[in-house]
Every structure is written in structure tokens, then in C-alpha cells.
């Protein structure tokens, strides 16, 4: 990949949870305008990677650079203000806030009323179903609607990088389809995406580049089409033997 297009660059990142060495020196890059996927088994360190980038988890060593600036171990709210938004695993909708308030939480640091309105229209266009439910409490939405809300909420900060943790998890197959379509659409409209998925097949199909994580290390990387053809990946993650 060409250096000048890099949006996010992770170098030799080590993370510990107590005595557990969760990330053992991983390095990877996310180029501007692309979809990059991290795949791997449960406990491989995918969520930890996203949490460390977003500032929820502290790195022991290594650097994270975003748009050329060092953001390693910056608090989460500052990372967000720099233009990184996250759709956390399990959606984490605020159940006690209305759908509208959930969206406004996404736009917490924005002052441009006009822009907020525009983006609101945009997410309602992406997910028309949300528009009918703006006054409903987040906790009353169905799983699929919550996922849409989580994505929309992240988009409301108008991020340059959108990170998504297992967006297809626990969704009915038909919704999984829809979510992946939307991810592509968001990317086509100019947002760079870092995606973590257990559904490796779906994730690799929509992404440009992929990394395979195994117990805290990157064991394999390559353009997504190549990974889809890789025998080891097929066996371990795609359930094709």
C-alpha cells in the first residue's frame, strides 16, 4: 500500500490485561477511503485492538498514529474529537435515552446545527426505519434496529474513520446482509472503515484488505480476495473444508 494514503497506522502494539498479554506487538495500517477487516477467533484480540485505538484500553507499548498525529493512550473522548468513531460490540445503545437522544449523543461535540441536521437526514435515509422511532427509548428497539442506531450514532460525529466491532453479531441472516450493504455504502460515500468480524466470509467480501489475528498476533494479511482463496483461512474461519 502506498504510504501517503495511510489514515491509521499501528506499530508494534502491546496490551496487557493484568497478567494476560492480549496483544503481542501487532502492526497494521488502514489506508484512506478503504475498508480494512480484522478477522480471527474469539479471544484473538480483535476487540482489544479497537478498544486500544479508541482509548478505552491503555497500551503498554507501541504507537497509534491517526492522520499523522500520535494518538496512543489519549483518552477516549479526545480520540473521538479527532475524528474516529466506534460502533462497539453488542451495539451498546443507551437504553434509557430516546432514539433521537442516542443520535445526538453521537453529535455531542458538534456545534454546527446545520451540519447536524444534514447528517440526521443522511442517517434517516440510510435507515428509514429509525425515522419512525425517534421518540422511542433505545432499549425498546429490536436487535437489528439497535445495530442501525449504533451505526447511525457513530456517523453523527461525521468521522473520517469508522471502527465497527462485530456489526453482524446476533443478527438474523437477512439483516446481516443489510448491514454489510450499508457498510459498503458508507464507505462509498467517503468514510474509511476498520471492521472486526467473526463472520469472516461476509467481512472479507466487502473489504479491500484483511488481517488475520490469532491469540494477539497478526499471522496473515493480504488483499481480501486473496484471503478468501487462502486454504488456511478457508479451513479455520470460513468453515469451508
Amino acid at each position, binding site marked *: 500500500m502506498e504510504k501517503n494514503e495511510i489514515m491509521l497506522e499501528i506499530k508494534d502494539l502491546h496490551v496487557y490485561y493484568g497478567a*494476560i498479554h492480549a496483544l503481542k506487538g501487532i502492526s497494521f495500517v488502514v489506508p484512506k477511503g478503504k475498508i480494512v477487516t480484522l478477522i480471527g477467533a*474469539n*479471544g484473538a484480540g480483535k476487540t482489544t485492538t479497537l478498544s486500544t485505538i479508541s482509548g478505552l484500553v491503555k497500551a503498554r507499548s507501541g504507537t497509534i498514529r491517526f492522520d499523522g498525529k500520535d494518538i496512543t493512550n489519549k483518552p477516549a473522548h479526545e480520540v473521538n474529537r479527532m475524528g474516529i468513531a466506534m460502533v462497539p460490540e453488542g451495539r451498546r445503545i443507551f437504553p434509557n435515552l430516546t432514539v433521537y437522544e442516542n443520535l445526538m449523543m453521537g453529535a455531542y461535540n458538534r456545534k454546527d446545527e446545520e451540519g447536524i441536521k444534514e447528517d440526521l437526514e443522511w442517517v434517516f435515509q440510510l435507515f428509514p426505519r429509525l425515522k419512525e422511532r425517534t421518540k422511542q427509548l433505545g432499549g425498546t428497539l429490536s436487535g437489528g434496529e439497535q445495530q442501525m442506531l449504533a451505526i447511525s450514532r457513530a456517523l453523527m460525529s461525521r468521522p473520517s474513520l469508522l471502527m465497527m466491532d462485530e456489526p453482524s*453479531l*446476533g443478527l438474523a441472516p437477512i439483516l446481516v446482509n443489510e448491514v454489510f450493504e450499508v457498510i*459498503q455504502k458508507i464507505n462509498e460515500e467517503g468514510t474509511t472503515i476498520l471492521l472486526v468480524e467473526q463472520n469472516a466470509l461476509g467481512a472479507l467480501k466487502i473489504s479491500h484488505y484483511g488481517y488475520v489475528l*490469532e491469540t494477539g498476533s497478526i499471522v496473515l494479511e493480504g488483499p481480501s480476495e486473496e484471503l478468501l482463496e487462502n486454504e488456511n483461512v478457508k479451513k479455520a474461519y*470460513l*468453515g469451508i473444508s
Partner: protein
Amino acid sequence: MAKGEPLLVLDHVTMKFGGLVAVDDFTNEVREGEILGLIGPNGAGKTTVFNVVTGIYYPTSGRIIFDGIDITPLKPHQITHLGIARTFQNIRLFQDMTVLENVMVAQHHSISNPDGDRILKMNGKKPKMNGKFWFWRSVLKLGYMDMEKKMREEALNLLEKVGLASLAYEKASALPYGQQRKLEIARALATEPKIILLDEPAAGMNPKETEELMDFIKRIRDEFDLTVFLIEHDMKVVMGICERIIVMDYGRIISEGTAKEVQNDPKVIEAYLGKEWEVI
């Protein structure tokens, strides 16, 4: 009980939390001596099945029979006394205690579980507790030291068998991840179970550790004359050691059979492995 006979029977078990149906009309059995796998996507209700069996939750409806005894209304400590042991998805060791102490805690019910014994007696089975008044005997040290010595020897013996003897006096929290998983199994074995429920034993292990774990599970099954019921995400483990597999999705059993049968079931592929679909 003969090999292959049903040891643990779940009869139309349903578990609801508020409006959410976590386990929906689950009917199946675990047969004496087998290694049974329970798989399914995250949130399918697998761990809830374990929690209902071990008494953490009372099922909303349905019955659970273990070794001929209806354990549905029983409390966790009684169920353990009858012979069901478990491990947890996110390791729950007694972190600030030593490896040896962790195992010895699991032996405690053999001197202090009159509740469990009562159930055994009521069902015409042999009580398990070794004598009475152990609280006073242990505080006043009346014939307690021999018991302590016996428990200690048995615990060390067990640790020897599972290969943790050299770490007996380390704090549980100081153990590497893989060893902690092993200790959790050892601790469960110390309750002298007939059946052991393993909740994602391979989570967070690398391929080499996973390989060892598979051998380990098979070995303890034979050595301790156990029945094994396990939840696992790692398909290698499930396909490698499970003689029978149950697949859950949305709280329901969607498929059951040998590894081969399950793997080729289209319903399983759709729910668990991700469906083939076209990109726009």
C-alpha cells in the same frame, strides 16, 4: 449406570428473562460417558443452559433430571454435591488464593453440605458427607487435622494428575492464562463430579494449547470416569473430540448429531458459519 444411558436429562426447559427467551423448549440428554458438544452463535443461549442446569437460574418451565433425581428446584451447592461440576466462560478462579487452596475449596462440600446429603438420602442414595459437626471439630481441632491432611493429599494428588503440582503454592492470579483454564477444570474435578460442564474451555488459547486441551479433556474423561458436556466456539475442538453435537440458535436446538452430520446440515451453515450471499 451403564455407558450410554441418559445421565442428565433436560425436559422441555425454557428460560425467559423479562421478554427475552434465552432458552426455548430445550429437550435433550447427556449420556453417561460421552463427550457432548453444545455450539451456536453468540447469544444463542448456550451458557444459559449451563446456568439452568447448575441452579444459578431456575428455569421458567420444564424439568431437569440428573441421575434419576429431579434437580430443577435445587440450589447450586446441592446440585454440585449430587455430582455436577462446571467451569466458566470468563475464568472465575479464587484469584487471591493459591492453586492448592482453589482445589481444596472444592472439597469443602464433602464435610459441609448437609443440604446435599439430605437430597441424596431422600432419593435413596448414599450420602457423601464424612461425619458431622465439622464446624466445631475444625475450630476446636478435634480430629480435624487428619481430615485436613487427607484433603490436602487428595488435592495434591489431583494437581499431580493434571500437571499443576509444581504450581500448587502459587496464587491463582499469577498463573498464565492456559494454566488458569486448566486449574478451573482441576477445581471442578475436586468436587468429585459424575459430569463436568465446560464453558468454552479453549477460549483465548493458541492452536498448540488447544491441541493439548483436547487431549487433556479426553484423558480426564477416561481417568475420572466422567461425562463431559462442553460449549465451544473453536470448531476444531468441537469437531475433534465431541462424539455428539447439539447446535443452538436463538435459544432453540436447530440440529443434533455427529460432527459430520451437523457440519453438513444447511440450517447450521446458515446460522453459524455465515451464509453465502451476493455483494451488491
